[in-house]
């Protein structure tokens, strides 16, 4: 396969995923504008941070006036799972030159990673197979920028009387509920939720970080106990 074959195979593998991603990008754009971010900041967050759920959280925390350091720590914690993708795809990218590693790391989101790792694990790698990840990554990136822009455009037209702010927790509910498949993950979510209620009055939104730490600890503890 040539460079071009790999690239277009990546693009084709990514297209079906855009159906799920683009409504999400539109909701992000509309909400970011709704919490008071400028159009420019709302749009550029999609390329500077370029990570769906942490962009929603950033928009929300900025809107509530949380301190910058807490927001940055929260973004890092939420995106820590990308270290798993990085570790899992690293062997396939090890022959690449550094500029390629930098570019592909920037593009390494959940949705670009998934089809690429499936491709690499089933087909193995050749001299040009990093072009496949470039194809999935660039396709997702373009779809994310376009849908953010569309969301900002539509968001400006939504009357503020609608309780659009409620779409944010609803989006998080849609993300979290399907994750509660095991007892450990359900308990981790429940404890984190309870702690966040109890610690709500803590300054600087520190309750959020405390609650997340408690939830993670409970999940790890229960999983460890089950495995004995």
């Amino acid at each position, binding site marked *: 396969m040539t460079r071009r074959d790999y690239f277009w195979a990546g693009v084709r593998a990514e297209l079906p995923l855009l159906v799920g991603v683009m409504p999400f990008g539109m909701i992000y754009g509309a909400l970011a504008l709704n919490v008071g*971010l400028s159009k420019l900041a709302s749009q550029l967050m999609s390329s500077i*941070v370029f990570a769906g759920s942490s962009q929603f959280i950033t928009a929300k925390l900025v809107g509530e006036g949380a301190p910058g350091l807490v927001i*940055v720590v929260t973004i890092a914690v939420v995106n820590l799972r990308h270290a798993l993708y990085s570790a899992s795809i690293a062997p396939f990218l090890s022959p690449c030159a550094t500029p390629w590693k930098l570019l592909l790391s*920037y593009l390494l989101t959940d949705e670009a990673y998934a089809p690429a790792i499936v491709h690499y694990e089933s087909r193995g790698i050749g001299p040009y197979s990093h072009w496949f990840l470039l194809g999935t990554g660039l396709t997702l990136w373009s779809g994310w920028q376009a849908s953010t822009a569309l969301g900002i455009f539509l968001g400006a037209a939504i009357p503020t009387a609608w309780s659009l702010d409620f779409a944010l927790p609803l989006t998080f*509910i849609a993300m979290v509920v399907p994750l509660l498949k095991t007892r450990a993950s359900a308990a981790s979510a429940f404890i984190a939720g309870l702690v966040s209620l109890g610690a709500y009055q803590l300054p600087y939104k520190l309750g*959020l970080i405390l609650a997340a730490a408690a939830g993670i600890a409970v*999940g790890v503890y229960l999983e460890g106990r089950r495995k004995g």
Partner: protein
Amino acid sequence: MNIWLIMLCGGLATFAIRLSFIYLFGRLRIGEGLRRALNYVPPSVLSAIVFPELFMPGGAFDVSLGNVRLLAGTAAALVAWFSKNTLATIVAGMAVLTLLSLF
């Protein structure tokens, strides 16, 4: 902190996380403990954000039939559980909230 500085720091942190193992391949290993802990980041962080939105809409704890956000959020969670569809969940939650707010 300025919004641009927040985005820049958050973006750099995200980029560094994504680059970590790709760049340091062979020199960095992910421990079993960390791998396990990372699985619980999404459920913990997301529900830590959702709970106060539903249970303390006005800033004070409120579990009553008058708390329309709690009712709408519960309905949305049920839709999320059965449909696993983001858009359906949001539409259902907004619809229930709008309906209940009329009364």
